[in-house]
């Protein structure tokens, strides 16, 4: 902040975008808007929307000056005005509400957001440690998922078992989507009432959170013995994942990781399936947000640096077997990368009985 000439940074957040607030003030809003006023010495004031949220945050950090207002945005606007001649900046772009951005602070939002983004990209040793623990939890969660995946069970029951496990390990948050079926499945989504059937491919992306930090695992399993086609498809995705991970090193770009994975698909005549018609990204950053920067896409030129963390996942649709996922969390090291995910890279098979 001193280098950027900022006296007070006002950080906005909500349950959807709580990452910047967690980074700047170590708070996680559960409901409503929250705003943190960060001085050069640390968080000075927090404004939230309900007395319950205010009481909770005070109990978590007694030293915080937490206030609440039913009109938290208006209250924040007034508090900003009262700061007078101080140099104030507002961030992040994704969470700043319209009313606060309508004034003179609008021009600086992008720059203040970039400042936070830079700080959040490379992880400190305690942040890496939290991510390592989250990766262990993701591995264990996937073992629970495999055990829960049985013919006849609805998709939502699998998530219930995984959530119960995560809670038993003190994990308050998880991002999880899944898919089940065959060639007709084009992606993943929240769990439905569909019941698992023999021969289904069951995909999932599990993303538990430890101390605010998310790690992810993507795997695909088959209910019953895998078909020859499913095995063959797995080997393509595994080759792509390995190629992507091999490309992770300082100085490489996020685009290089995407290109390495996509090249494998192109070599197998599957180039059409690495486009936005069939897939979103070939991985993404991991941190206090589940889908953090950088997006792993061929046109992203952000250079990797040591202690950046990301998931590499060549997830996409395959015309023979349907949507298929496979991905590991990694940390960039000075000379390559450390794979945080420990679950075997294989096409898991779940017995039918």
């Amino acid at each position, binding site marked *: 902040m001193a280098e950027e000439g900022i006296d007070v940074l006002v950080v906005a957040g909500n349950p959807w*975008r709580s990452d910047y607030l967690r980074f700047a003030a170590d708070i996680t809003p559960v409901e409503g808007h929250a705003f943190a006023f960060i001085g050069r010495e640390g968080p000075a004031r927090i404004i939230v929307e309900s007395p319950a949220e205010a009481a*909770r945050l005070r109990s978590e950090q007694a030293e915080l000056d937490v206030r609440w207002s039913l009109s938290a945005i208006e209250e924040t606007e007034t508090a900003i005005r009262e700061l007078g001649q101080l140099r104030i900046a507002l961030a992040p772009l994704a969470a700043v509400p319209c009313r606060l951005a309508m004034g003179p602070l609008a021009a600086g939002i992008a720059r203040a957001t970039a400042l936070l983004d830079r700080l959040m990209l490379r992880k400190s040793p305690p942040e890496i440690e939290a991510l390592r623990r989250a990766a262990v939890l993701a591995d264990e969660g996937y073992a629970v998922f495999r055990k829960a995946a049985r013919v006849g069970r609805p998709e939502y029951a699998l998530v219930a078992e995984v959530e119960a496990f995560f809670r038993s390990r003190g994990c308050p948050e998880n991002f999880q989507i899944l898919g089940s079926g065959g060639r007709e499945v084009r992606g993943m989504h929240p769990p439905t009432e569909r019941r698992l059937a023999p021969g289904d491919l069951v995909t999932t992306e599990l993303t538990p959170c430890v101390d605010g930090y998310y790690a992810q695992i993507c795997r695909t399993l088959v209910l019953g013995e895998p078909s020859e086609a499913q095995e063959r498809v797995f080997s393509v995705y595994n080759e792509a994942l390995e190629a992507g991970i091999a490309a992770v090193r300082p100085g490489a770009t996020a685009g290089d990781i995407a290109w390495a994975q996509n090249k494998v698909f192109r070599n197998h005549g599957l180039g059409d399936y690495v486009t936005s018609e069939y897939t979103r990204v070939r991985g993404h950053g991991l941190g206090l947000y589940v889908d953090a920067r950088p997006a792993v896409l061929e046109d992203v030129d952000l250079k990797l640096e040591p202690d950046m963390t990301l998931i590499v996942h060549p997830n996409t649709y395959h015309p023979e077997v349907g949507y298929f996922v496979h991905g590991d969390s990694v940390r960039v090291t000075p000379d390559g990368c450390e794979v945080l995910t420990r679950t075997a890279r294989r096409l898991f098979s779940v017995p039918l009985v």
Partner: protein
Amino acid sequence: MRRGLISWSRDEVPPSVLEGRVARLQEQMRAAELGVVLIYTSFARPSAVAWLTHFVPYWNEALLVVLPTGAPVLLAAFSKRVHDWIRSVSHVGEVRSAPDLGRAAAAFLGEHLPKPLRIGVLELDALPWPVAEPMIKSEHGRALVDATGLFAAIRQPADEVEIRLARRAATIAVQALKAIPTGTKRASELLSVLERSARLDGAEEVLPRLAPDLRANATLRRLEGDALLGERYAVELSVAYKATWVRITRCVSTQAVPPSWRGAANRFVETVERLNEANLSLEPKNAAWTLETCRGSPPLSIVATGEAPSPSPLPGGSLACLSLRLKLDDGPWLGGEPLILGGREQPSRLLI
């Protein structure tokens, strides 16, 4: 992020009910001379769009465009591959891909509103800046007006469909609370049981908060990690079922239930009975309280609380949740239940 069951049962929420809600909004729009109403949704602010269309984003964001006639259009920042899923769980006329929501909205307005008409935006002040900015800077910028009051005017009282969903949500929460094993020692064990029970019962989302040791601290906390449970603890369980949220709070004693708690429960019921649309200012002794309802995009927002002087009006028949904290001689007591607000001179009644 939402990760419970998201599905649309046409039996539980008939398309005609959703169409009726949209028609009421369109009627208000015409009366207010609005050419369009825009409603933002994310998993943090899903409720207005869900009430009109049954769509709940599990992540990402979208903008619902309601024109004076016809079915609403959803501009969705989701990948196109998810559109089939969106259509399967919601009742909208068209789903348009809109990776840059603000620009897509500005372009849509340009296409559909050639004349300068007023554009209503639900909770305009709160609209995320990347969504708002392209519209504000477009030729339509000066036409944007806040439509929060207009939407709130039609949002409550609750219809029978919503009350049934809320009752189901409350039943899921109560069943989860009943599933807590006797002798549970740790918060992690307790929360695991609650999650499992509620999600297996079809909860769309579960939001537990816990005061692990009531005698030490009665603040309801979002737990990361673990905590030992005291002899007395309190659990607040907010549960969504098909986009309808309720909040239930219970105290648990590992010993015999203290007699003072029975008195507290009676006081809770008396408080509910005193509450109605003409009397939203409770004055229970030694108590803190909050009355919440859904009338915008947040799942629950405060109507009245003992900590703020003036309640905002809420009509009889509204679905609401009352949370009460009492200071008893032998320590704090917390209770919370969903209710249907009484009309003028009518008592409110508990939902279950």
